[in-house]
């Protein structure tokens, strides 16, 4: 085996320039492919992170049936079991309790339908930095603080200022009337217009009182330490809870984002496919030439007693060497760039930035440094190069020694 490796390795450098050119093409393709993937996956991670932060979390626990009918009647009372099931999951970094419903918000002549969210101030801030989004007034200190937080968009629409009173009118738990007057405690501004225009925050206690839903929640939104282990965490949670609860992952609750990512991802994969076709043909050409110009040499080796299977192995090794060298060189070359961009992501400006902000996403393009990325590309290129080596291998197993020796 060592002997075959030695032969393959030396053969590779027989035509140094050709090998280097082939290597360079593999290297470029791999570096480009990794960069594209890293950026795509990084951006998706950022999009998902932002999306889940302002909405459902990676995982949401709510009462069975709540997702289809998001009514306050489908709220639940948290109990010790639920708490202990949540606490038991190492991967959960944060479980944010919320009571959400709808109401009409009015101030004198103006009325608007709004989402009302009763929150635990600390947990909410930890999840999405709500406290830092306050532009006027003060954030809640406890989950029974009075007053209401409204977005600057809504404040403009309703022509309200700090200290003015907002009236909320809606339906409470099990048909009770929900009505209350709330002084505007603070005005916030999110990068997401929809939140600015249509969402108001109450402290959890005030919301429960408003909706006559004492001790009730509509959901726990859960953030994770490692989003890649989301499925496992979800399964553990579901296993610990009875059928009164439903544990859902963000993709099930935010299908629009999933679709957007899938669409974009498909485009990226096509790019990748094209890149790898180029690699495949480059390697194929080189290996084919390396084989054809050594026909006679191969015939001699088989004549003196080298089994064609071992000859194939030499060709495979040559192919793998080219592939691996290309992958490693490509990865090593691009890694510093990706590391730099991971910590200093490209920041979008202008229209692109605006588009991102409208979706509530930070306008940055971070890269992903997930090792799986490198490993996957490595395996892929290896498979592709091995496929490129197939024809030469078939060839060396078929040629006629006597005829080839004559050349």
């Amino acid at each position: 085996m060592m002997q075959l490796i030695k032969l393959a390795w030396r053969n590779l450098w027989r035509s140094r320039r050709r090998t280097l050119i082939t290597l360079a093409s593999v290297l470029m393709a791999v570096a480009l492919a990794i960069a594209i993937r890293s950026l795509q996956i990084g951006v998706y991670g950022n999009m998902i992170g932002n999306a889940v932060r302002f909405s459902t979390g990676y995982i949401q626990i709510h009462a069975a049936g709540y997702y289809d009918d998001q009514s306050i009647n489908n709220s639940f009372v948290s109990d010790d079991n639920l708490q202990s099931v949540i606490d038991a999951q190492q991967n959960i970094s944060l479980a944010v309790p919320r009571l959400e419903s709808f109401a009409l918000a009015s101030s004198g002549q103006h009325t608007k339908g709004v989402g009302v969210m009763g929150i635990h101030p600390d947990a909410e801030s930890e999840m999405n930095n709500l406290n830092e989004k306050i532009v006027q007034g003060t954030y809640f200190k406890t989950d029974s603080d009075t007053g209401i937080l409204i977005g600057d968009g809504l404040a403009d629409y309703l022509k309200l200022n700090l200290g003015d009173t907002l009236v909320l009118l809606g339906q409470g738990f099990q048909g009770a009337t929900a009505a209350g007057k709330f002084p505007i405690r603070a005005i916030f501004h999110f990068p997401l217009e929809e939140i600015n225009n249509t969402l108001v925050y109450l402290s959890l206690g005030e919301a429960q009182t408003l909706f006559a839903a004492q001790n009730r929640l509509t959901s726990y939104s859960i953030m994770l330490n490692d989003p890649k282990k989301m499925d496992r965490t979800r399964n553990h949670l579901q296993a610990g809870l009875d059928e009164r609860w439903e544990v859902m992952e963000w993709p099930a609750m935010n299908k629009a984002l999933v679709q957007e990512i899938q669409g974009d991802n498909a485009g990226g994969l096509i790019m990748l496919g094209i890149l790898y076709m180029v690699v495949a043909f480059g390697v194929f050409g080189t290996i084919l030439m390396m084989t054809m110009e050594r026909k006679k040499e191969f015939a001699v080796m088989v004549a003196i007693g080298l089994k064609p299977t071992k000859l194939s192995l030499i060709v495979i090794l040559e192919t793998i060497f080219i592939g691996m060298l290309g992958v490693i060189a490509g990865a090593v070359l691009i890694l510093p760039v990706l590391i730099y961009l991971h910590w200093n992501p490209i920041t979008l400006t202008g229209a692109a930035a605006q588009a991102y902000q409208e979706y509530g996403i930070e306008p940055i393009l971070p890269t992903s440094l997930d090792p799986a990325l490198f490993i996957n590309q490595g395996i892929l290129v290896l498979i592709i190069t091995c496929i490129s080596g197939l024809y030469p291998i078939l060839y060396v197993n078929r040629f006629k020694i006597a005829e080839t020796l004559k050349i």
Partner: protein
Amino acid sequence: MAVIEISSLTKTYNETTVPVHALNGVDLQFEKGEFTAIVGPSGCGKTTLLNMMGGLDAPSSGEVLVENEDITRMKAGPLVEYRLNNIGFIFQSYNLIPVLTVEENVQFIMELQHRNKKEVRDRVDHLLQVMGISDKKTVRPKFLSGGQQQRVAVARALASKPKFILADEPTANLDSKSTDTLLDLMAELNEQEQMTFIFSTHDQRVMDKAKRIITMEDGKVISDVKVSN
């Protein structure tokens, strides 16, 4: 007992299109320790015959028994193994492996035989010494003259301890001085180690050294004489 027994051997190329009868019923026997030249005009079938004897090509009919084993009936896999362990090959254009050094070229075949390291090293040293190219051990073939390369090829052919060595026009690319050196070395191996050599040749010098000369024409043996020199 004959090492090689060839009977009723025929080979027809292009059987379906324009048939070329390269061998037309050849019967021959070779004993251990022979130093034999196969001669004849170009196209008479020398290479074809050697290929059949070396298990490099299959005949159209007839058999080639090597120590009573018909190598024409062997399957491709075992045949490679058989060639490795029983037959030494020397080619007209040396055909050393260019990426291996002189030493490694000779080792290569023994490593394929899975011989132990020490045995390989000793034998390689010995053979290179015998062939007078010890000083070129670590050099790649392209830095050697044709004569030197062919001496490495002889060392490689001997390395596997074959039953016989087939050499298709081994001196055709060599100048007269190199030819003489090579022939002397081979004759010596033949004398001292009873190594069996079967050549095809057009070269008078080779014929002069040969102990038996087989003459072919149109795929047939037309004369087979033992010569004493």
